[in-house]
């Protein structure tokens, strides 16, 4: 249980953070996820140094429609590879959300989080209950883990492992 | 004793009687730079002079990566636009449909003129010899210094005389001739020399063919390469010469040459330069059947209307078997090709027609090769890594050979399909 409680610093982003801001199109030719991390948020005004300064375990906090724009899965890989354990946003763009789920990458929907968390706040996130504590202000929020199918896919660690498990079940 | 072209033209520019081996200082008539005008302008600023010696003698032509494909290329172009404004440079070809590959523009727009001394910050500046100019490539620092002072030193070079007789057989062209010459005398065969093309076959050649010959002078190490400024040249420049300072200068009949060669076009067959050097010559039938992944018809060597016509003859009504990139040498050529229906032939054949520019020639832009891939190209260099990937292979050939190979998907002799 304890390992599902995470602590880290919050990096707060606004609404409609598009995929070019998360991972710019000029790096699309890269195929190795490990190489992608260094370009995370390079084009986000004021957070150009995110990839250098964020520590594994830090959280990405954002407003509505996080990840709008392109279908590039790079925008999920880069944050995952950087060691960002979970994204906490008010809502997600459709493709981004799918890509995250398909990779078993936790993305929680947390209403009004950008009003309750400031850049640099220390957060504690319980991935099992969805409880989010702002250790800096003491405020407590709830993040919605996703609906059943997505939860199941996430539990297997992503779409491909999930499909493999389903296939194995069918064979039995 | 008679004088060579180099002795005469440099003597005229220096205002004194000069001999081979002597060092002279001259004022070049036109100084051409392409996208590297930006880094040159930075070196120029370091010199500490505010204004170039004479803005009317400076020509900028953007062609290496147009329109800009990356931030760096875009910034580079911006620096040039600002320098142009600041220095009052009128001869500027930006990213629009007036431009094209720099050497094509220099010839097409009346800068390349008989008897002028011209320099360019590009090694293929020797192309303008087709119009009877003494033109040669220089580096960035030297170009910056020339902008500042209006002067450049030259050692009056030894000369090589190449006499060409006879006429081309079907399927053979100027590209095959120059590849054969370079194969014979090797990449350093004309090092530091002025190469003069003489003979009845040269007078019969179009200016496009002469440009192909002179363009590749650098591939045998030449300082410059030049053809006689005959009626064809005078006719081509009569309406658009950018200056009247030119003069038809040619070598004396009894001039002394360090080396003399003779070629008979009737004995020539289609040839290629095999990877990875330009002097690695082979007749096309020796390498026929070699599988290719890409064909490139373009560059300052072979992308004029005459070249496109030759390729279109072969591609008409056929389909290419590999990706085939066609890049006309300039927008003027592009428009003429459209008017003549050539572009439709290329499109119907499945070719890609790119906007004029250098394309993949030096690994900057459209058509970079993947490892293990082979390209047949009408450009001028097949050095390892030239088209952006050191694990790829480039064969140089004529437009006809490239077209025939594109249809077959393997290197092919154009005489089989003509």
């Amino acid at each position, binding site marked *: 249980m304890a390992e599902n409680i995470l602590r880290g610093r919050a990096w707060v982003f606004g609404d409609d953070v598009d995929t070019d801001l998360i991972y710019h199109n000029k790096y699309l030719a890269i195929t190795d996820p490990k190489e992608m991390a260094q370009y995370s948020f390079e084009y986000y005004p004021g957070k150009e140094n995110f990839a250098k300064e964020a520590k594994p375990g830090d959280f990405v906090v954002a407003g509505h429609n996080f990840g709008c724009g392109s279908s590039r899965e790079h925008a999920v890989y880069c944050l995952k590879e950087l060691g960002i354990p979970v994204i906490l946003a008010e809502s997600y763009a459709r*493709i981004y959300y799918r890509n995250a789920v398909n990779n078993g990458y936790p993305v929680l929907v947390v209403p009004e989080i950008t009003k309750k968390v400031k850049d640099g706040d220390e957060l504690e996130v319980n991935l099992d209950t969805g409880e989010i504590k702002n250790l800096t202000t003491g405020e407590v929020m709830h993040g919605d883990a996703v609906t059943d199918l997505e939860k199941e896919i996430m539990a297997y660690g992503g779409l491909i492992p999930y499909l493999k498990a389903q296939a194995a079940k069918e064979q039995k | 004793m008679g004088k060579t072209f180099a002795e005469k033209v440099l003597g005229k520019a220096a205002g004194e009687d000069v001999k081979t081996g002597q060092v002279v200082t001259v004022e070049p008539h036109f100084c051409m730079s392409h996208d590297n005008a930006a880094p040159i302008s930075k070196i120029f600023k370091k010199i500490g002079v505010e204004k170039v010696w004479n803005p009317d003698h400076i020509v900028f032509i953007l062609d290496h990566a147009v329109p800009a494909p990356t931030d760096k290329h875009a910034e580079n172009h911006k620096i040039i636009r600002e320098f142009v404004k600041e220095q009052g440079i009128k001869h500027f070809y930006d990213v629009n449909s007036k431009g094209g590959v720099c050497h094509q523009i220099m010839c097409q727009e009346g800068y390349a003129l008989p008897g002028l001394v011209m320099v360019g910050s590009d090694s293929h500046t020797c192309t303008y010899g087709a119009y009877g100019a003494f033109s040669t490539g220089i580096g960035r620092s030297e170009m910056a210094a020339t902008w500042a002072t209006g002067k450049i030193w030259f050692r009056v070079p030894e000369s090589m005389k190449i006499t060409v007789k006879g006429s081309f057989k079907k399927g053979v062209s100027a590209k095959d001739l120059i590849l054969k010459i370079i194969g014979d005398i090797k990449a350093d065969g004309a090092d530091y020399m002025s190469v003069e093309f003489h003979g009845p076959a040269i007078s019969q050649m179009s200016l496009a063919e002469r440009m192909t010959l002179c363009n590749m002078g650098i591939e045998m190490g030449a300082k410059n390469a030049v053809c006689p400024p005959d009626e064809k040249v005078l006719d081509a420049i009569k309406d658009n010469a950018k200056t009247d300072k030119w003069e038809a200068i040619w070598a004396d009949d009894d001039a002394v040459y360090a080396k003399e060669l003779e070629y008979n076009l009737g004995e020539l067959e289609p040839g290629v330069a095999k990877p990875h050097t330009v002097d690695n010559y082979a007749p096309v039938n020796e390498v026929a059947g070699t599988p290719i992944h890409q064909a490139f018809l373009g560059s300052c060597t072979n992308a004029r209307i005459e070249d496109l016509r030759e390729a279109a003859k072969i591609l008409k009504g056929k389909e290419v078997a590999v990706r085939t990139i066609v890049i006309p040498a300039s927008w003027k050529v592009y428009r003429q090709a459209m008017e003549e229906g050539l572009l439709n032939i290329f499109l119907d054949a499945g070719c890609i027609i790119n906007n004029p520019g250098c394309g993949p020639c030096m690994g900057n832009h459209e058509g970079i090769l993947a490892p293990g891939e082979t390209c047949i190209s009408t450009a001028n260099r097949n050095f390892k890594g030239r088209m952006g990937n050191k694990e790829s292979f480039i064969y140089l050939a004529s437009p006809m050979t490239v077209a025939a190979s594109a249809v077959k998907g393997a290197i092919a002799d154009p005489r089989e399909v003509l």
Partner: protein
Amino acid sequence: MGKTMIQKIIQRASGKEVKPGDRVWCNIDLSTARDFAGPNCVLQFDKETEGKGKVWNPDKIAFTFDLEAPSRSEQVANNQKLIREFAKRQGITKVFDVNWGIGQHVLLENGLVKPGWVILGTDSHMNLLGAVGAFATGVGNTDIVASWILGKLWYRVPETVKIHVTGSFKKGVCMRDLLTKIVGTLGAGGLIYKAVEFVGPTIENANLAERITLCSMVTEMSGKIGLIQPNGEVLEWLKARAGEEVVELAEAIKADPDAIYSEEYEFNVDDLEPMVSAPDAPDNVKTVREVAGEKLDQIHIGSCSNGRFEDIAAAFEVLKAADFKIAPGIRAIITPATREVMKQCAQAGFIEKFLAAGVIFTNPTCALCTAKHYGTLPSGDVGMSTTNRNFIGKVGKGSHTYLASPMTAMASAVRGVITDPREIIG
């Protein structure tokens, strides 16, 4: 209870009765990838299947190359090669190489898109195929790999928003302006997870290019798909390309009169005027009049949103009205969507006139939109483009872009400053 178009489509593909919010597995009719993310799919597929896997059905897979065509870097050259070799190994014959053009348009022109089909692609603007009633979505590589293994994929059945459009466009105003207006009204997240049905007389009379423009921008409102019921000339065009069965397929996806919509919007275009998306977001919408006079360094007409023949023809009309002259110093670039469009433009005599005016015409690709080819802006430059995104820095660090219709873009090229096209074509 009546069903919307998307419900009917998903029902056919999943074999289940569905309502919004349900998660179901759908059979995939066509799974495509491009030279962007395609290589990731290939690498991931080979990894997951230890290099021994066979795709579920090579005839239902296609590749398109449009990100960098031809390639500008070793990496993309290598990526494209990876795809070509994979296709050969797997017996996939539908490979549209660098000489074809923008993927969705190439698929359409080659008759690979049918009404009601469930289609995937590694392009967030796949959903423009809703213009012919196909349910096409942009996905990441993991989804593609799953579809290659299984031939199916999970979907959440979306709610449907109905957008009803009436009226006719005045001269100088077009579908792109309506769309910009809609994006401005609904916002970047306005259609999140939702399907849209575009209906009403204005839509029924719209040509294919206009329908594509409309559906392509659903992505910019975070919608899942924008659907238009194929009819009239569009259906005829489709029949000629994809076969007789499209008539029946189109009939099968018709929304029921009593279908339930989560929201309904009405737009009338009679009084609509030319619109722009100002920097740096598609939903930062203004009228052209509000921003008129701002100096531009470059205009670009093209992309999957506005790169068809009709779009280029509209720009041509504006240039013609200006005696085929553009402002000195401005860079104007046109990129046709496909080779077919390029040929149409050549045959109509457009290219010659554009070139004579100083406008550049490139080979068909995604071009400026992916900032890979043709027209990256230097810092401080301001451009106008008919593409679909003007996110900050998207086409060059430190530059800014206005999104507008092909007519507005060309009118602005004529004057060198943002210009209402009505001033030119009067």
